[in-house]
C-alpha cells in the first residue's frame, strides 16, 4: 500500500479580473501523489495547471489568492505555515522547477554559486563544501561537474534547464514540482531531460509532480496522469490505462491532438471550440459545449466524480459506456 507524499484537498485559486470579475482558475481540486511516484498533470494552456503547481509551493503571483483548501506534505499543512516557515520548507521538502521558457538563472552569477546559494540558505555548511555538492548534483542530471564555473549564457537551453533541476535537487526534497520543465526546448532534448529525471527519481526515490501540455511525452515518464480542464481534474488514471482506455472524451481528444513521435505521421485533429469563461459558474459539465459525445443531460447537470479503481478518478456522465472511438 503506497503512502501519500502530497495530499491536496479542495484547493481553489482565484484571480481578480477587470470590472470586479473573479476568475476561478483552480476549482476545488483534490488529489494525492504517493511517495516515489511520478504524477503528471496535462491540459491545454489556461486550464489552471500552472496555478495549481504554484499554489502548492505557495509562489502564486501577489494578485492571486488561495480561496480555500489544504496542501499536506506528509502531515504538514503548507497553507497554515507563516512565510518564514514556508521559506524553510520550500527547497528542503518541496522544490520547484519553473518553465524552461523563462530565464531561471541569474546572468551575473556562476552556475555553481547559484546552486551553492540554495544549499547555504538552508544548511550551515561552508561554501566550499556546498560547491562540491553542486558538482555532484550537476553530474547527477547529466552535466559536466566543471560547469559550476560557467555562466548561464555559456550553456544551451537544455543544459540550463538541467542546471535548474540540479538546483532543485540540492537539498534532497521529497517532492519535486515541475511546471512545464521542457516546453521551450526541442523535442529530442525534451525527451532526454524527462528520461533523466525519471532515472534520477528511480535512484533517489523522491516524488515528482510534473505539469505539461504534452500528454504523450508525459505518459512515457509518469506513473499516473491527471487531465485538467477548466480548473478541475476530469480524469486521473495510471499511464497504461490512459494509453489504452481513456474514459473521458476530453482525454481522448487530448491524446489525439499529438502526432506520435514514432510511426506513420498523420494530421493531428485539434479540439474544436474554446474553454469556458472561468469567471462564470456553469450549470452542466464544463466540457459539454465542446464534447463530441455530449447528451442532453451534460448541459444541465454537472457530472459527479466517480472512482473506477484505486487512486483513479473520472468526471463524466457517460464514463461507464464502452469506448466510442
Amino acid at each position, binding site marked *: 500500500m503506497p503512502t501519500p507524499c502530497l495530499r491536496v484537498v479542495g484547493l481553489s485559486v482565484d484571480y481578480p479580473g477587470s470590472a470586479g470579475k473573479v476568475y476561478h482558475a483552480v476549482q476545488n481540486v483534490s488529489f494525492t501523489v504517493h511517495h516515489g511516484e511520478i504524477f503528471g498533470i496535462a491540459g491545454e494552456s489556461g486550464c489552471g495547471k500552472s496555478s495549481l503547481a504554484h499554489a502548492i*509551493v505557495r*509562489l502564486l503571483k501577489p494578485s492571486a489568492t488561495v480561496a480555500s483548501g489544504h496542501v499536506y506534505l506528509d502531515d504538514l499543512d503548507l497553507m497554515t505555515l507563516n512565510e518564514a516557515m514556508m*521559506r*524553510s520548507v*520550500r*527547497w528542503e521538502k518541496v*522544490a*520547484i522547477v*519553473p*518553465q524552461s521558457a*523563462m*530565464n*531561471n*538563472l*541569474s*546572468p*551575473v*552569477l556562476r552556475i555553481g554559486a*547559484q546552486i551553492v*546559494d*540554495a544549499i547555504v*540558505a*538552508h544548511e550551515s555548511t561552508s561554501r566550499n563544501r556546498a560547491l562540491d555538492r553542486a558538482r555532484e548534483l550537476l553530474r547527477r542530471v547529466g552535466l559536466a561537474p566543471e560547469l559550476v564555473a560557467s*555562466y548561464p*549564457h*555559456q550553456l544551451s537551453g537544455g543544459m540550463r534547464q538541467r542546471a*535548474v533541476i540540479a*538546483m532543485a535537487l*540540492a537539498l534532497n526534497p521529497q517532492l519535486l514540482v515541475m511546471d512545464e520543465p521542457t516546453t521551450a526546448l526541442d523535442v529530442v532534448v525534451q525527451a532526454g531531460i524527462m528520461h533523466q529525471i525519471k532515472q534520477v527519481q528511480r535512484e533517489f526515490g523522491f516524488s515528482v509532480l510534473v505539469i505539461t501540455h504534452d500528454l504523450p511525452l508525459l505518459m512515457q515518464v509518469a506513473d499516473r496522469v491527471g487531465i485538467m480542464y477548466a480548473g478541475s481534474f476530469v480524469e486521473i488514471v495510471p499511464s497504461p490505462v490512459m494509453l489504452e482506455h481513456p474514459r473521458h472524451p476530453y482525454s481522448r481528444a487530448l491524446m489525439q491532438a499529438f502526432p506520435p513521435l514514432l510511426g506513420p505521421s498523420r494530421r493531428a485533429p485539434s479540439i474544436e471550440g474554446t474553454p469556458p469563461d472561468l469567471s462564470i459558474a456553469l450549470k452542466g459539465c464544463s466540457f459539454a459545449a465542446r464534447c463530441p459525445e455530449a447528451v442532453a443531460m451534460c448541459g444541465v447537470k454537472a457530472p459527479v466524480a466517480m472512482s473506477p479503481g484505486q487512486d483513479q478518478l473520472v468526471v463524466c456522465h457517460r464514463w461507464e459506456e464502452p469506448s466510442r472511438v
Partner: protein
Amino acid sequence: MRFWTLGPYFFKKLMFAIITVWLAITADFALPRLMGGNPALALASKTALGSPAVVKALERAFGLYHTSVLQQYGDFIVQMLHGNLGISYEYYPESVTQVVFSALPYTVGLVLSATVLSFLLGTLLGVVAAWHQGRRVDDWSVGVAFIFFAIPYFWLAMLLVYVFAFLLGWLPMGQALPVSVVPLPPLALGLGIIRHAVLPVASLVLATAASYLLIMRDNMLSVLAEDYMMLARAKGVPNRRLMFRYAARAALLPSFTQLMLSLGSVVGGALVTEVVFSYPGLGNLIYNAILNHDYPVIQGAFLILALSVISANFVADLLYPLLDPRVMLN
C-alpha cells in the same frame, strides 16, 4: 579570466576612441572658423582693438595667415601633436598648454570624486527605493530625486556657500588651497585641500545623485520582475543577498553604461560649480577667458576637456568586461 577573447571588443572601443578624438580636434579647429568667419576679426571687434596691426597679429596667432584652410588644419594638428596650443592673451607669455594643464588637476579631482560618490550614493538609494517599490521609502526617494533633478547646479552651490560658509562659517567660501604666508606641512595642506573641496564636491554630488537614483531604480525594477528573481527567492536566498548579489549586480550593468554617458554632463556641471567657488579648474579658466576674450585659452581648454572625457570613457570601456560576464566570455 580569459582576456584574450576580448581582443575584438578592445579594438572596437579603441577605434571609437580614436575617431572621437579626431572629431573633437576637428571640431575645436572648426569652431572659431565656422562661427565668426575670421576669428581674428571677430575677436578684434569684440575687444575694441580693431587696428589692422592687431588683426594681423591675431591672425598669426590663430594660424590664419595667408594659407588655405586645409593648410591651417594640417598646421593645427602638427602644432597640437607638439603640445602647442598657442599663447594665452591674458597670461602672456605663458602658453595655453601651461595654463590649461595647471588648471586640469582641479577639475579632474572634482569630477572624479563627485562622480564616484554620487554614483555610489545614487545607486544605493536606487536599489533601496526599488526594493521597497510603492512604499514610503520609495515614494520619498523618488519625490526628492525629482526636486534635486530640477535644481540648477550653480544655484545649489550658491545655497551651500550661503549656509555652510556664510551663515555657519564651517567651510571656506571658495578657492582650492588654504591661504598661508609660510609653506604648510603636508598634513595641514592636505586637510586644507579637502576642506576646500567639500562644498564643490557636495553640490555636484547632490545635483547628480538624483539621476543615478532614478536610473538605478528603473533598472532594478526591471530586474526584479525577471523570472530568476522569483526562483532565487524560492530557493531561500536571504533578502540582503537577493537584493545585492542577484538584483543590484544585474541592474548595475546598464547603470554603468549610463554613468559613462552622463560623464559629459557632470563635467558641464563642474565647470559652472567651479565658478561659484572660484575653484581654480578649467571651468574658472574658461569663465575668465570668456570675460577677457582670451580665445586661445577657451579653445585649448575645451580641447583638453574633451580629450579627458574621451579618455575617461575609454578607460571605463576597458573596465566594463570585469562587470559583465557576457562581454567577458563572448
